């Protein structure tokens, strides 16, 4: 009998402090978790609760799963006290994957904010793993300060990849910062791809998602080509418990990535 509420065990084998309140946990699950970019996993912090996170590692390497997590509440607060060697629980994968077959042959314009780069990294790695299938990959990423940028140690390597174009901004700079200062939309004044045909993928705080979406629409992106990671209270991951309902969607089942065309009729989709 399959128990849909039962997590399997995963060992924390490494942690990486990304920022003062964001940490990457590298997990080795007791059995392979067959996730695809865009899908998420319910992570059990034994005794402290369960919460949904999208893996930030490549789906081409599933022996280990990386999850980059911001400390925001009770469960994530407890998780930050877990050490290498501790066991956590995993259920999943859940939700819909990015429809990569629809991305083939097109430019892909990725916009991330803060810890929102974590799920986008899984997509970025999937795209660059088979880059010949796609057009160019643009990554536009904004953080509050240079210290709040995640994957600082990886971005220089990503910039060297074929057909990849990366630009960064921070809301508040320091003396060493050489790139743009401002919210992430300041990187979007010139969009170097064919907006009508290209794919846009956005993940970040709801307010950032709202303004980035407006900017993308203004630039000429099609609503069906704008993929948004909707932030709702995904709890069971099974499309049953009801908490993540967003208009006619269970985001844990139909999302968490939905297109603008799917969400545009919903009152206040970005809260």
């Amino acid at each position, binding site marked *: *009998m*399959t*128990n*849909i*509420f*039962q*997590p399997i*065990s995963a060992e924390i084998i490494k942690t990486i402090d990304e920022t003062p309140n964001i940490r990457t946990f590298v997990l080795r699950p007791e059995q392979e978790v067959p996730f695809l970019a865009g899908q998420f996993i319910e992570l*059990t912090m*034994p*005794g*402290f*609760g*369960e*919460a949904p996170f999208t893996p930030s590692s490549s789906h081409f390497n599933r022996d280990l799963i990386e999850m980059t997590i911001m400390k*925001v*509440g009770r*469960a*994530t607060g407890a998780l930050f006290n877990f050490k290498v060697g*501790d*066991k956590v*629980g995993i259920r999943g994968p859940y939700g819909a994957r990015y429809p990569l077959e629809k991305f083939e042959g097109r430019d892909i314009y990725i916009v991330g904010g803060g810890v929102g780069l974590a799920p986008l990294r899984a997509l970025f790695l999937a795209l660059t793993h088979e880059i010949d299938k796609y057009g160019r990959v643009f990554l536009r990423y904004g953080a509050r300060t240079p210290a709040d940028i995640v994957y600082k140690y990886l971005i220089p390597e990503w910039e060297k990849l074929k057909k990849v174009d990366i630009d960064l901004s921070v809301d508040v700079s320091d003396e060493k910062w050489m790139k743009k200062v401002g919210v992430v939309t300041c990187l979007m004044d010139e969009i170097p791809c064919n907006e009508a045909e290209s794919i846009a993928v956005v993940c970040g705080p*709801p307010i950032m998602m709202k303004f980035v979406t407006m900017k993308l629409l203004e630039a000429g992106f099609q609503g069906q080509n704008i993929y948004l990671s909707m*932030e*709702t*209270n995904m*709890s*069971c991951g*099974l*499309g*049953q*418990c*009801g*908490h*993540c*309902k*967003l*208009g*006619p969607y269970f985001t844990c*089942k139909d999302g968490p990535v939905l297109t603008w065309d799917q969400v545009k009729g*919903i*009152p*206040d989709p970005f*809260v």
Partner: protein
Amino acid sequence: MKPRFLPTEKQKAWLSVLVADRVVFFPAIIKDQVHWQRLDPGMLGAADAPEWGLERIRASEPVKSFFFNPREKVATFPDKFVSPEPEKRVLFGASACDAVALRVNRKMFVEGDFKDEAYARRRAATCVVVADCPSPADTCFCNLVGNRPFAGDEEKDEADVALSVVEGGWVLEPLTGRGEELLGSSQAVEATEAQLAARQASREAAGKRLAEVNPKRFAPDTADRIWQRNQDKEFWSKHAADCVECYGCLMACPTCYCFLLYDKARGQGEMERTKVWDACYIAAYARVGGGANPRAEFVKRFYNRFFCKFSHFKTWQGMPACSGCGRCTAVCMGKIDVRKVVLDVLQ
């Protein structure tokens, strides 16, 4: 499968057989309310046994409680939890609206992308005898949501036997093989034309009563019109004004499927996960870990209930997530009548 007749004097013998190897629940009248009660063998024929409420409306408790437990352990960590083997049960005297509610539960918990095995096993181990509802109450509106006050072939997905109280006994119509098997242990004989005519007359009278209670019908485009009203805060606020947020309507509802999973620490690195009924009216229901809440205002939560039941579920599953049982109206301290709200949308 032909309807049978079981005379009153032979009912006790049949129930004795059923209760010998199954757990049987029946609708008991307690303080003039109908409540599900376990049938102990000693109750059969006992002078102080509760009166049966087969001719009353549905029990106060939603039928989902038998399968979708109000509180249930569902997982443990690191050891893996297996739910216990369900007992064989008979719900003897559910209502037709209960059968419809079970259909909603099945669509959510059994037929979706993920099957809740514990629910499915409990449901499979339970035989449901649906009794006709000869006297619908003022709160009943099964006719407005496409249902009827008795079970037949249309309800056989969730009803095994249709029971009708007629003069001198019960007309029992098996609707499934399992119902046929259940009836096999009785001394029922083929029902006469007169008995079937009496059943028909009672059913028609119940239908007439429902038409009187609910003279206005829900329009075929109810689902669309509720969705189109999603921005009309003034409208929904008017109807939500008397709600005291007790969540009674949602707890009494047999089709509300929401639940909360919460984990308790058992020891270092160990946990026990419990699944409890939840209610979308609760302020923190949709709140995310970081504190943002898409339905922080009550009026949005109030709208969400109507959207979920009468619009989204209908569009998605082809039926509203409402059986018309009227429990929500019956328990509401603010006297909010779900029918009136929907009919007002359609004005």
